């Protein structure tokens, strides 16, 4: 479909990008940065409803000369990413370190980020996927380094940039190989060329290169090394966002690449993914045990969570993809909740050390109880949302006979429960050093309440969520 015809379906995204530029313009002229924030939140909310009123057709619609695939999977991204961003922005409104610096740009960056992520999730073309991954990456580097007076934040941004560029370069090389084989950038055409036996070794090489590039985005071992440093040093709301949105969309991009362009190699990548999944969750969980900084601990935990999601990816098929999507939703809610609680505490105490959570049950009973529920949900204990996600990835592996993977994940879940409960222990079992109550700003309370409600509702009544996701096919 050509550009003009496509625009009709691209209305929500067009609106989004206009909203982003408008917010940027307002930021130039207004001293009150909260107006930019309000405008950004409004744009996101309107985008969400626009996307809802322009649903994707059940059979994919290929827009912009086959670069943008408008299908239920893209629609999933259109809902998930703005929702995640909305909560992130709510949690950012009163994030102390941010208030002094570039507050306006901060909100605008997120709007562009949403745009980039949607492009990434909808890519059905090699060039498009490279461009959108780069677009998202560059924005991520900026976000991480936003606190430019903070040495660690800067260091993390540089580290992220170097790692990310290397990974992108490798992926680009893989893309060039695939283009060389097929003479086309379109996923479908690439898929046909890859299926020819004479290209087997070349395309396997391209597969590995692709896994490097996208594996970097989703913090898959062994390309996860950047994650703990970046997640620890970045502004906390940015960390919250990075552990959720780019990871989720990276998974969706992988689904498209593996399921269409590299589908003929499925027996190859299935085995690779099983190994990498086990590796990712094990490395993440074992490294998390020793952490004393909560951001770093959750950083490792989110690496481990990526490992669980990769289980569903390894299974693939409609069952595997569904389990990935359900896991992504439940994980996004829960992880955002955890970070909102972290922001509330660090606003008051100025510390992210687990020791500063001592006696939080007395100082802020509501926050402590919510954080406990989020951690229990992350640990996959019923009846919370995280359990439903875990249930689906486990059941997809069992259904398809991937027993080793299931057992590895079960062992890993036990390890994970140990360090999640380290935080719970600090909050409930260790006496507080001071009695000062921890107070939360209203916007943070709203963010906490939204994520908590979601975590509980999707745990007790996941039917609508499952129903919706069951209709999503590649």
């Amino acid at each position: 479909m050509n550009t003009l015809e496509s625009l009709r379906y691209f209305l929500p995204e067009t609106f989004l990008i206009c909203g982003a530029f408008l917010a940027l313009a307002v930021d130039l002229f207004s001293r009150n940065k909260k107006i930019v924030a309000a405008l950004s939140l409004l744009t996101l909310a309107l985008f969400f409803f626009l996307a809802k009123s322009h649903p994707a057709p059940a059979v994919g619609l290929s827009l912009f000369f086959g670069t943008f695939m408008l299908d239920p999977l893209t629609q999933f991204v259109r809902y998930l990413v703005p929702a995640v961003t909305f909560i992130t922005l709510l949690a950012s409104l009163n994030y102390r370190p941010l208030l002094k610096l570039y507050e306006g740009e901060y909100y605008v960056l997120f709007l562009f980020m949403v745009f980039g992520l949607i492009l990434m999730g909808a890519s059905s073309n090699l060039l498009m996927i490279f461009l959108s991954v780069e677009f998202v990456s560059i924005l991520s580097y900026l976000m991480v380094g936003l606190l430019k007076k903070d040495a660690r934040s800067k260091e993390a941004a540089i580290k992220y940039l170097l790692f990310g560029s290397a990974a992108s370069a490798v992926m680009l090389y893989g893309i060039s190989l695939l283009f060389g084989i097929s003479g086309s950038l379109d996923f479908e055409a690439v898929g046909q060329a890859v299926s020819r036996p004479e290209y087997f070794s070349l395309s396997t090489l391209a597969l590995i290169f692709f896994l490097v590039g996208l594996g970097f985005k989703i913090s898959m071992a062994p390309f996860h090394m950047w994650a703990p440093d970046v997640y620890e040093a970045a502004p906390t709301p940015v960390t919250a966002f990075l552990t959720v949105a780019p990871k989720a969309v990276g998974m969706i991009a992988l689904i498209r690449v593996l399921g269409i362009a590299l589908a003929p190699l499925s027996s190859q990548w299935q085995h690779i993914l099983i190994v990498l999944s086990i590796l990712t969750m094990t490395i993440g969980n074992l490294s998390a045990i020793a952490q004393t900084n909560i951001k770093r601990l959750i950083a490792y935990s989110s690496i481990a969570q990526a490992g669980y999601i990769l289980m569903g990816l390894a299974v693939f098929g409609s069952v595997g993809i569904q389990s990935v999507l359900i896991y992504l939703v439940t994980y996004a809610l829960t992880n955002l909740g955890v970070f909102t609680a972290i922001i509330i505490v660090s606003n008051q105490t100025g510390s992210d050390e687990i020791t500063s959570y001592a006696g939080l049950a007395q100082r802020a009973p509501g926050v402590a109880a919510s954080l406990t529920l989020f951690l229990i949900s992350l640990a996959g204990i019923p009846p919370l949302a995280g359990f439903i996600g875990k249930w689906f990835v486990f059941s997809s592996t069992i259904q398809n006979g991937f027993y080793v993977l299931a057992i590895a994940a079960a062992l890993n879940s036990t390890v994970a429960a140990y360090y999640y409960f380290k935080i719970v222990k600090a909050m409930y079992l260790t006496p507080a050093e001071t009695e000062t109550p921890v107070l939360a700003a209203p916007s943070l309370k709203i963010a906490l309440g939204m994520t908590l409600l979601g975590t509980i509702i999707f745990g007790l009544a996941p039917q609508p969520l499952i129903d919706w996701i069951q209709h999503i096919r590649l």
Partner: protein
Amino acid sequence: MTSHLLSWIAFMPLLGGLVVLFTPKDNAKAIRTIAVITTLLAGLLSLKALMGFNPASGIQFIEKVMWIPQFNAHYSLGVDGISLPMVLLTTLISILACLASFGIKERIKEYFFLFLFLETGMLGTFMSLDLFLFYVFWEIVLVPMYFLIGIWGGARKEYAAIKFFLYTLFGSLFMLLGILALYFHSTPHTFDWVELSKMHFAVRFQKFAFLAFFLGFAIKVPIFPFHTWLPDAHVEAPTPISVILAGVLLKMGTYGFFRFSYPLFPDAAHWFQPYMGILAVIGIVYGGFVALAQTDFKKMVAYSSVSHMGFVLLGLAAFTANGFNGAMLQMFTHGTITGGLFLLVGVLYDRAHTRDMNAFGGLSAQMPAYGGFLIFFSMASLGLPGLSGFISEFLVLLGVFQYKKLFAVLSCIGIILAAAYLLYMIRKVLLGPKNEKWSKLTDINAFEVVTLVPLMLLIVSIGLYPKMILNLMSPTVEALLVQVGGKF
């Protein structure tokens, strides 16, 4: 309250817990009153279920509502002769433990909320007829238990709490894999116990699934060598929680064998029969010897639990009517007897602030009434004829004698050991020269007596007329025996 009786029983405590949450935290009296009232209500409702229960007609009071249609999970409750006694035991022990919790002085609101939440979890576990629901309740029990041990426990409470939590979680995750495998092997895919128990699965699959479930249940019981969490948890937990642990939580494991492992995987259960027997005998003898070596009163009772729960497993291993009936009865009697012993340990600890048995002596002169109670429960525990512990252990031995005489002979060592460590304890604590250090200890008070008397009544009446509870159980137990192909 008649149409959804079981839901009312299960959720009554949680309802009370929610009310507790909205009570001002300084108002200890109100919080305690609410807790007692709700546990009492749950108890009365479970009695009502007992009144309406017909032992001969299988599963009753069924409630079944579709919960998550996408994977055919139901909210499905029901009780039969296996689960109803456990429900009654749970509500009874909960009432007594709730009364015994009046000694808790710190963070009362949190305590009673978690306590009531725990009761809902336990009751739900015993009533669930859908494996998904069962798993949810099973796991729900873990979380309040972690806090109850971790916040209100003894010196090493943090270690004990997380150890309990991780051990049980480890087992239940494998059970989860087993549940999923079972689901995908059933045609049509279902979690419904009633439907699943009518299906027959390939023997190879049964063995794997049995082992997956076994890991979950064995850790909970606990079966040697998975028992190491138990002494830590029991010793560090506050008295009422030890009572719940010993009285109810351990039974969740053996209940799991009766409810799921045996009827769903009968061939695998047969295949596992000798191993079950061996593990049971090891548990009985080993638990007895370790209990004999303890100087800590509470630790001794904790290890005696390992030994006594071994009899439940022995009965399960027998595959005879006597064995099964004995095992079921032992679950109930152990709950009442050991619950009482833990309460008595607590009574002493509250006054003396030590549990070292060597530090006491001659207490029967100082606390005569206490001495009487302790001797009564010790006699019940060591299997004195006329008290309930005798009946259940005798039935188990009778049953296992029909299966393998050697097992029966070896497990008698456990009974001798029980007599040894209990009498030894009585000698060290109650008899001997009076230790002047304890001359200020007051005797057991009326309030504490109230928590013990219901247990004593049950112990005596079951001991004299075991049919009152066996009649409740045996039709279901015998149906199970037919299903798994055991001998009468």
